């Protein structure tokens, strides 16, 4: 976050000076050094305590994370040293016997594909839901609706798993066939065995989308609620239609928030364990044709392997968890870059 309140960033420098002044005002009170100091004589004990405790909380969080990272790396390195295969390019997962060989290629593929499908579905729908609740539905209804959508966040993963396995996946066989009929000329939409099981990466992507939707929708909704009325009213006063008002006032203001919300959702989509494990007909191979059963995700593989794994197996699973870390990091890093480019909209200057 620090980056987004640092005043001298490329994005800001390019903007007109008026905006820039607004920004430096914000950072002005963001640092004690630049505060106007009318109360120099007063001992602001409260401030010091507050700054201390909030910084302390941050540092504690950092310490926890560092400890986890160290723990993971140590455990993972131990296992990686005994790996007979190539950890990054293999798709097998054999951690028993004399020649353990495990690799994450297939798992990373499955994780990325299912999470990508989930985000492609969930983000637009969630933004739509948030817009509906904040700008379309009658105000009285809106709160109830928001509450109902939040309920989805309360459904435990294992229920998504059961529901996906027993109820949803049989219903999606038709959709699979339909997609492969019409889009089968695109290689990844090709389906080898028409009419076969729908317990595929695609179905998992849909289930993940349903799981992350309330997270994204809820945070996005709160962001939209914070859009300054003045912006919206100005747009309407200029004769904009509702959609134009949303395009010009709401979405630009909410963009960093939408991205942050999506990242929260993505975190869950990437790390979701039990629902994917229960639904997916998995295999240890790199699968691109997501309408065919097969493939696996990192988290689901952990769920499938963990209970019966020996020490080496555990280490190998932790190593795969580390890969998941880097994946998350990569995507989040990219998101941060985008947010920073649009950060002039944060810290409203209504």
């Amino acid at each position, binding site marked *: 976050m620090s980056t987004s309140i640092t005043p001298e960033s490329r994005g800001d420098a390019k903007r007109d000076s008026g905006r820039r002044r607004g920004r430096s005002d914000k950072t002005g*009170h963001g640092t004690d050094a630049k505060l106007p100091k009318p109360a120099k004589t007063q001992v602001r004990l409260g401030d010091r305590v507050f700054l201390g405790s909030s910084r302390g*909380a941050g540092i504690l969080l*950092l310490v926890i994370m560092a400890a986890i990272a160290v723990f993971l790396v140590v455990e993972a390195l131990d296992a990686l040293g005994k790996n007979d295969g190539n950890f990054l390019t293999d798709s097998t997962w054999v951690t028993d016997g004399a020649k353990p060989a495990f690799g994450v290629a297939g798992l990373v593929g499955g994780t990325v594909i299912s999470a990508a499908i989930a985000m492609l579905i969930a983000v637009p729908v969630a933004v739509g839901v948030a817009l509906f609740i904040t700008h379309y539905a009658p105000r009285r209804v809106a709160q109830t609706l928001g509450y109902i959508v939040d309920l989805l966040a309360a459904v435990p993963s294992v229920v998504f798993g059961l529901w996906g396995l027993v109820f949803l996946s049989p219903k999606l066989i038709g959709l699979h066939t339909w997609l492969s009929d019409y889009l089968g000329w695109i290689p990844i939409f090709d389906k080898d065995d028409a009419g076969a099981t729908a317990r595929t990466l695609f179905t998992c992507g849909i289930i993940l989308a349903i799981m992350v939707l309330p997270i994204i929708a809820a945070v996005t909704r709160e962001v939209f609620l914070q859009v300054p009325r003045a912006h919206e009213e100005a747009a309407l006063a200029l004769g904009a239609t509702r959609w134009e008002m949303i395009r010009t006032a709401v979405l630009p203001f909410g963009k960093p928030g939408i991205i942050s*919300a999506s990242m929260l959702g993505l975190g869950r989509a990437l790390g979701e364990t039990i629902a994917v494990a229960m639904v997916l007909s998995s295999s240890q191979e790199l699968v691109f044709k997501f309408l065919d059963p097969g493939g696996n995700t990192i988290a689901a593989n952990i769920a499938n392997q963990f209970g019966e794994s020996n020490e080496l197996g555990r280490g190998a699973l932790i190593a795969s968890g580390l890969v998941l870390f880097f994946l998350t990091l990569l995507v989040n890093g990219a998101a941060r870059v985008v947010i920073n480019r649009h950060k002039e909209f944060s*810290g409203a*200057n209504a």
Partner: protein
Amino acid sequence: MTITTTDTAVSPAAADPLKLTRRTMPDWITWALGAAAVGLGVLVKAVQGNWALGAFYAGLFFIATVTAASWRLEDRRRAKDRFATSIVYTAFVLAIVPLVSILGYTIKKGFEELSPYFLSHSMRGVGPRDDTGGIYHAIVGTLEQVGLAALIAVPLGLLTAIYLVEYGRGRLARSITFFVDVMTGIPSIVAGLFVYSFWIMTLGFEASGFAGSLALMILMLPTVVRATEEMLKLVPNELREASLALGIPKWRTILKVVLPTAMGGIITGVMLAVARVIGETAPLLLLVGLTQSINTNPFSGWQSSIPLYVFEQNHAGNQFSGDRAWAGALTLIIIVMVLNLVARLIARWKAPKAGR
């Protein structure tokens, strides 16, 4: 400022000579098109035998025709507006359908077993061929574990977010942000393994509800921090400036002005975090042990929890366990619902009234 950055929005209006009244599409057209769309849907269902396909074609037909009609009868901007409106409504319906389906399914399955008896009994001494037993021990476990986790994670997360938004600059803040990002990607079992090796193996504590809380806390933190951070950033600077200008110390400004303004969003974030961890199974399997008996002490002895209960019953494969699993899932949803409701009431009660 925002408007100048986008191109299409204002220009059509400028191009059009401003008219005070416009042609508007009569309402009956929308209704007629809606009816036609429903008819099409039913027809597709009749031919293809598939409601989903029918709904899909009906939706597509409706959106296309309404937009086209508006374009013809009104103008391009109105058409776009109507198009956007139908898309937003569609998105909402798309989100509601699985919700209703999954809730309905859980309720249908869960109510077969859910009863006061079920809620007030543990599984102690229930054999595989007994239809007795309940979820009480798991409810106690879940409430205590998640409560403790929230008790640690919420203040910690709030303070961290405050630091990041209000104070944080430089390397420390950057690394905190970095690690919070990484934390969102921790698979839950990894958090469990970490607590296991740190709290149980290194420090030598036994498996207990609290050990589970620690893992849940780690999983809650990033959601709390990021959601809070996002909300704090949206608090208008004018509010802060006004408060500071009145000579109010910064810490009081944050507590009295910034936090209350962002309260609704923060509560949503906290509830999302609670909802995220309350259904967590994997770390608890490692950390809280698993018991069939009631243990109200989260600091000593094995406990159960609702997701563990669901997992265990789903996996047990005797003739009553399936129903118990569904009833457990339903119980969990109800609990989160109630917590959500309470949190919202608190938020409404505590949030600044508009125009105060």
